[in-house]
Structure formats: C-alpha cells, structure tokens
C-alpha cells in the first residue's frame, strides 16, 4: 500500500489517500484492514468528490485494461473495467464499431462510465450507457464474484449502474457497440437567439439527428437570454479510415497562480464565440466533435490552484423552459459563468440504473472557478430553482450539493443502500448521507 495524492477533475480536493492495488481481475478484493473503507478509482475524471475517499483508501483500477473478447459481427465487446474509451477506440473503430454512448471526454474508464451511468449528446435518441451494458462481474469484499445482468443479480446490476463505485469492484463488463461507417461526423451548426429558438431547433432535429447539444452564452440577459449555438450531428456514412497521425493537442503543464477564467476573459470569449461566422454544415473527425476539450490536456488547470466546480442539473420536462430560464438569469446576474455552458434535452428512455441522473427534461452544465463563499451563494440560489422544479444534480460533477437535495432528487437512495458493499464508501457518499 502506498500513499499518493489523488485528485478529481475539479482539482478542489488534493488529499493524500492510501491506494490498495488490484494486480489483476483475478486478484482478491484488497484486504487493507487498516483502512476504514475503500473505493474503486478509475481515471479520476469525475469533477467533485464522488471518486475520492479522503481519510480512507482507493483501489486504482487503470491496470485492469485487457480486452477479453470482441465479436466483430455482433459488436459485442468484453473487456476489463479499467480500460479507457480512448484505448477501446484503437481496437473497435478499425473494426467498424463505436461506443453507443460517450461522455465529453474519451479519457474515462469503462468502469467509471458504468458507475456514473454516463450520457452523451445522443441521450434523447438512445438513453444512457447503462442500457447497453449486457453484463459485468462485480467483485465484492466478501470474496464473491457475481455476474450481474438485467436477469441475473438484477438488483445489484441496477444498483451498480450509476452506483458511484459503492457496490464493489467492476472487474470486467460486456458492452453492446453500435455500427459506424468511419470516424467522421456530419455536423450542422446553427445560431439561435434565445431559449425558445433553441427548443424549436431541438424539436425539429431530434428525430433526424442522433446527436444534439447547444452552447449557451451564460452572460446573455433579457432578449439575449439563452442565446447560443445549436449543434446537431450524425455519424457520417462515408468510410474514411482512422487518421494515421493523430494531431498533437495542446497541454496545460501547470496551474497558473490564479484562474484564467474570470469575468473579463469570459465576456470577451463568449461574445466572440457567439458572433462567429454563420451557420455551417460539414464533416468533422469524431475526436474534434465529441471531445473538443480533450485536445487541451489538463485544461482544468486553467482554473488555477483552487480548482473548479461544475454544476450540472436536470430540470424535468414540465418545468424545463421556465426552470432553465431562471437558472440562466441567475447565472448571468452573478457574472460568474464559464466558457462552457452546455444545454441539452434529455429523452424519455429509462436507464436500469437506480441512481441514474438523466431524466426527461433539460440539462444545463457549467464550470465555475472556485471562488469560495460567493460561488456557494450562487449555488444555493441555483439549488433552490432546481429543487422547486423537482430536478436534481449530477453526482459525477458534484462536490458540494446539500444532502437533502441529493436525497430528494434521488428518492431510490434508501433502496440503494442495501446493495452497498460494507467495505465501500466515498467522500461524496458520507457527505450526502449526513443526517440521514
């Protein structure tokens, strides 16, 4: 066992934690009797404290990165849970397959994608990744190795999807891939002037475009409230091969002494971005379409040594437009927004995950430099709007939501607790269970 500094993507928490290694998928659950609890830790791309276990231990899983099988005719891939999407792509894409659902970074592990039941720009069309997990093996601290699927150990299956690593270690998983002709995406980019125009664009696009998402200028107020760019895309039917030379991205080698994301830089960036040249249609590499931020390595460091918070909520359909408008108004008034305010309509397809975040409605996600108290005051205002509209926050992005907001937003938390492995816990879980 060694002590290392583990962080999450938000870089707010930088604490030494013990690591209890798992040398292979055949190895036993680490004993680590000196540690009060353990938590599987993938690639640390959750933003807050859901992948951390301060004062206790982590089980790094990146070393579990072997493929087990790939059926190139049916698109069924089985691999160890520590493999990154990026590593999976090297093998599945030349064979004509792609993941059915991808988050905004390809540097997540498969296990992490399951534990957070990730969604992508195609949620309205296909739902979350949990719907495509055929089965997985769960290693429990009592030594049991359980195959979980919708029909076998179905309670644990449903608890583990979106279960934040608390139900044990996913050693391997089987995923149903989706066919693609090649790595290109056909993308339409359309400017919209306000929230109503966005909703109209979504309504006219959601049948014919698998992927839709919008970027919103979170500094716009009044008639400009909710202005931005709408992107809709499909996999291109052209079959170009993978690029031979991957473009080398930029990297942020260290955190500057203060956040480069501030009121001045934001206003300039957002205004320029909104007034970019007119709408266009074109083919783009999948990497630049799905993962624009991955091309800037460690972009989180731009937020300085105090790190960043992401706020991602979903407002259920009935209150969607009003709730989102209220959120955007509040953020614009605060002047604390971020480069990236992402707005997306979630569809009605249900996930098997007990604590799955997405539900039918509108989701808004923004990054904020960590400014301490003034930011928490803004968050409290946003929380009130989310709560009033019956919404909830995404645990994968959260590092601060009040326990009551979590428990109201995820009413199945009580049912979930019976599936938690007695040796597993996390900083997030202890926080949101406070007072329960």
């Amino acid at each position, binding site marked *: 066992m*060694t002590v290392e500094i583990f962080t999450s993507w938000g870089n707010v928490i930088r604490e030494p934690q013990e690591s209890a*290694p798992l040398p292979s998928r055949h190895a036993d659950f680490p004993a680590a009797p000196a540690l009060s609890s353990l938590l599987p830790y993938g690639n640390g791309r959750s933003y807050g404290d859901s992948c951390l276990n301060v004062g206790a231990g982590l089980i790094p899983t990146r070393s579990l990165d*072997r493929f*087990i099988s790939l059926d190139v005719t049916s698109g069924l891939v089985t691999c160890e849970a520590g493999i990154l999407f990026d590593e999976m792509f090297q*093998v599945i894409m030349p064979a004509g397959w792609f993941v059915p659902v991808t988050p905004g970074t390809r540097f997540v592990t498969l296990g992490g994608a399951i534990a957070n039941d990730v969604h992508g720009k195609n949620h309205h069309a296909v739902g979350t990744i949990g719907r495509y997990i055929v089965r997985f093996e769960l290693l429990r601290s009592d030594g049991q190795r359980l195959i979980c699927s919708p029909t076998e150990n179905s309670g644990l299956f449903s608890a583990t999807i979106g279960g934040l690593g608390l139900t044990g270690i996913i050693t391997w998983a089987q995923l149903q891939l989706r066919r693609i002709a090649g790595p290109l995406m056909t993308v339409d980019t359309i400017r919209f002037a306000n929230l109503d125009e966005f909703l109209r664009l979504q309504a006219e696009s959601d049948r014919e475009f698998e992927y839709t998402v919008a970027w919103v200028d979170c500094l716009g107020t009044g008639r400009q409230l909710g202005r931005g760019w709408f992107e809709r895309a499909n996999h291109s039917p052209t079959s170009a091969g993978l690029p031979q030379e991957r473009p080398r991205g930029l990297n942020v080698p260290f955190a500057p002494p203060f956040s480069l994301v501030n009121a001045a830089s934001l206003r300039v960036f957002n205004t320029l971005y909104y007034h970019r040249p007119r709408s266009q249609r074109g083919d783009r590499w999948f990497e630049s379409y799905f993962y624009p931020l991955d091309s800037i390595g460690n972009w989180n460091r731009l937020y300085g040594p105090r790190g960043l918070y992401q706020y991602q909520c979903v407002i259920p359909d009935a209150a969607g437009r009003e709730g989102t408008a209220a959120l955007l108004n509040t953020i614009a008034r605060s002047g604390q927004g971020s480069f990236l305010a992402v707005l997306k309509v979630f569809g009605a397809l249900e996930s098997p995950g007990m604590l799955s975040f997405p539900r039918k409605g509108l989701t808004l996600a923004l990054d904020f430099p960590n400014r301490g108290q003034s930011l928490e005051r803004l968050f409290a205002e946003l929380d009130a709007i989310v709560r009033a509209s019956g919404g909830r926050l995404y645990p994968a992005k959260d590092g601060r939501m009040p326990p009551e907001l979590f428990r109201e937003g995820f009413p199945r938390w009580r049912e979930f607790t019976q599936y938690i492995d007695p040796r597993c816990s996390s900083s997030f879980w202890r926080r949101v269970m406070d007072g329960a």
Partner: protein
Amino acid sequence: MKKILVMGAGSAIAESTARLFAQRGDSLFLVGRKADVLESMCADLRVRGAKAVGMQVMDANDFGAHEAMLNGAETALGGLDTVLIAHGTLSDQQACQASVEQTLHELNTNGVSVVALLTRIAARFEQRRTGTIVVISSVAGDRGRQSNYVYGSAKALVTAFTSGLRQRLYPLGVAVITIKPGFVDTPMTAAFPKGALWAKPQQIANGIVSAVDRGSATVLYLPSFWRLIMFIIRSIPEAVFRKLKL
C-alpha cells in the same frame, strides 16, 4: 509479420510491447509464471489483432525446461524470428544481504537464467543467420550501488553477456539489442515514490518496438536521458563514490 517469443510476458514492459506487436498483426508466444495472467493476455492480444498467440507456464529458473519451451514456441508460431527477454524480479537488497540463498536466487532469476536462454537462442539464430534478440537489462547494471547491487550485478552480467553476444552475431545478421530502462512505473516498483525521472511502460515499449524495426544491434537507454545520467554516475571516482549514499 514477426514471430515473437516473449519471456516474462506478464511484466508491464513486456505486456505493453506485446500489445504494439499484436496491433500490427504479429504472432506471439508468451512465457511466464502465472497461468491466469498469460491466459488473459492471450485473449487480449488476439482482440488487439495478433495473428496467432500461444503460451507456456514456465519458471525461468527451471533451466531444464528451456529447450522444450523453445521447441514449443517454434512449433506454435511456425518459426521464430524475434525474442524479447523481459523476465525478472526486483531483488530485496536487505533480504539478500542476510541470505546467501536469496542472493543466489536473485542472481539466477535476473542474470543466469537469461544467459542460459540466450545461449540456446543464439545457437538457433546463428544457424539461420537471421533474427532479433532484445534483452531488458537495466541502468542498475552500469555500476553497483549499495541500495541494490545484487540486482545490479545480475544486470551487469546480462549487459556484458549481450555485449559479447552482439559482437559474435553481428556479422551473421542477427541483431542483439540491450535495453537499459531507467525508473519505470510498473507493479514491480509500486512501492517507490515517483518523481520526474519515472517513465511509463508504454514509453519503454515504443522504444523497444522502434529498435526492433530498425534492427539496430546496439545498447539503448530508455528514456534516452539515462545515457547521460549513467555516464555521470560511472565517471564518479571510486574515492568519492564509496562515500555516497546511492
């Protein structure tokens, strides 16, 4: 398409290297001590594109098993043109100082077993006048240091032996490549605190594969800055070196 034998296949450097070969459609025969690790590697390499994959469980210190293993590898691959010798253990220096048995065991694992294998492989490749032999030695073999001189002296044996073997086989068209990795972040070194000098096994693997492709019979420090570091360490006069806590 190469036909490659990997000794110590379960080591992190060997596995990373094997993946690069597999992606190109080469055939691989894996040898190691743990059956479950070899089996899961075989499946992985097949998915990654290896043309054929075989395996055998063997302890490198079982010298009597070497010849049969080599025959098995040649049969399974339909020939053999490349060998990667990557097995080894990081010796516990303190334990070795207290035990002759432990010291000899470490010397066997990291040094003598490599010599035994190389002797048999050299004979095969010498006859055919072709082939590439890659051996993982270590910067630790460049100069004995009190913190790990048992491991270091085993690697010094490997370095000196491969140097001579390279001269002998070079005119015959057989390339012997000595790899000297510096600090590599692997399960073998999990207990060490990691600093700026540490490399990932993937970096070492990239260096190995490009050396095999060039077929350059040479000594390669990986990453290359270790050549300079070790030059300096070797240049320290003994009168100074004996006082250092290295």
